[in-house]
């Protein structure tokens, strides 16, 4: 891939931008990789061996990708997620160049026109070329901050798929795949594995999270049909979490929380303790809000509401819905209804809006 990029960087100024630089870049890289594989007979023998032992052809191909060009894929990921690119461009580039999704597919997943997405990709590619964003893995001292950007991009892709099922549902699967690739490429870094575990746990509950005739009714964790959870994914995630012992980064802690929430009964006191640890690490008021939900379960709504009311999150829909739920449990119905209405005004997806309307009607 590094070679392809060098060729691309050398050729674009002379020949002008190709219609789809991302596609061109990836195609060129693949051709190069194939050429190189053909040249190397020992490798070819190994590939045959792999193909013979793998259950099917597709798997063998994935294996080849991961074992033969790992360094370059990592470089590609870090280039696509370079902080000098806008977040939306990082996401689009990663899906296009790393995951290999089509421009139109990406566009429809993010509810923008194909034309807009094409422009976004072209602009990003132009900046990579003209500002000379390096095609390299960051140095050890820069790795933590750069890795944080990559992880955020993958998690954002996952959440787009998770929160907007239907047109973008496959993005969750795509994000898990990207996370697995990253974890394999950076075996010494625990956070990519933590992110994979986190995504697996959320994704395991995807089927049970929504119900109704059109699959747009939100079902709360406590009310979900656990038989519809993917037990295999939950088990895999728990195994990942257990194997990471030395460090506790934000994704691993979130995965541990999700794992506890998938248990029956949920140890809410332990969940609250993990949220406290996460809040300490991130300083995020949203994390404190989530921690308050666990405290409500462990110690009752009054204590939780006192915490929630101290948070400055009036622009955040879940702050209002959490307050509303706590007020409802405290029997303060009028205040609860008003807070649910505030949440409804800010809610971003149809399942969330429906859930809130239901709550307002009940109250």
């Amino acid at each position, binding site marked *: 891939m590094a070679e392809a990029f060098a060729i691309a960087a050398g050729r674009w100024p002379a020949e002008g931008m190709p219609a789809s630089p991302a596609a061109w870049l990836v195609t060129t890289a693949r051709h190069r990789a194939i050429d190189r594989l053909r040249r190397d007979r020992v490798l070819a023998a190994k590939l045959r061996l792999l193909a013979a032992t793998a259950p099917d052809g597709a798997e063998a191909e994935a294996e080849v990708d991961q074992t033969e060009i790992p360094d370059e894929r990592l470089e590609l990921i870090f280039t696509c997620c370079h902080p000098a690119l806008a977040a939306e461009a990082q996401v689009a580039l990663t899906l296009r160049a790393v995951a290999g999704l089509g421009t139109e597919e990406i566009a429809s997943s993010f509810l923008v026109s194909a034309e807009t997405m094409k422009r976004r990709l072209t602009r990003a590619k132009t900046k990579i070329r003209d500002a000379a964003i*390096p095609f390299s893995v960051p140095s050890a001292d820069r790795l933590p901050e750069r890795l944080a950007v990559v992880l955020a991009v993958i998690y954002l892709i996952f959440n787009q798929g998770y929160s907007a099922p239907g047109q973008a549902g496959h993005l969750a699967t795509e994000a898990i795949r990207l996370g697995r690739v990253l974890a394999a490429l950076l075996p010494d870094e625990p956070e990519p594995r933590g992110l994979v575990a986190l995504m697996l746990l959320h994704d395991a509950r995807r089927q049970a999270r929504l119900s109704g005739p059109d699959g747009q009714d939100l079902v709360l964790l406590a009310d979900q049909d656990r038989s519809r959870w993917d037990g295999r994914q939950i088990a895999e995630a728990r195994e990942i979490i257990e194997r990471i012992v030395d460090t506790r980064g934000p994704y691993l802690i979130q995965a541990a929380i999700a794992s506890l929430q998938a248990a029956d009964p949920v140890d809410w006191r332990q969940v609250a303790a993990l949220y406290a640890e996460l809040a300490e690490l991130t300083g995020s008021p949203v994390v404190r809000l989530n921690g308050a939900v666990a405290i409500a379960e462990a110690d009752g709504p009054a204590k939780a509401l006192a915490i929630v009311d101290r948070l400055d999150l009036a622009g955040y829909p879940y702050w209002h819905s959490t307050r509303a739920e706590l007020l409802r449990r405290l029997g303060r119905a009028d205040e609860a209804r008003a807070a649910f209405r505030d949440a409804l005004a800010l809610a971003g997806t149809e399942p969330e809006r429906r859930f809130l309307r239901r709550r307002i009607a009940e109250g």
Partner: protein
Amino acid sequence: MQYALLIYSKPGTLDALGPAEREALSAEYYALRDEPGMLGGAALQPVTTATTIRLADGKPLVTDGPFADTKEVFGGYYLYEADDLDQATEMAARIPVLRLGGTVEIRPLMGKASS
């Protein structure tokens, strides 16, 4: 690649410094110009010395100062040769204006890609 490191400062930050601090700051800016890869640069006089020209009804109109109150004022630049954006960013991060609440814009120069 050649990059312009464009320095934007908050108005008045220099006035808040004492003469010794100002001198130290100025020495820091000069020292950066001796770094390998630095091709040149310039510091501008304060924005109070600026004159703006634009066309009004097709005729040049000259007025005092910049034409709007700005939070940040362009104060100078370095011209820097670097392998890539990361290297340029590392140099830009050393420019003292950042410590004084200012920003540095990193802009590649047109037609200056190295082979």
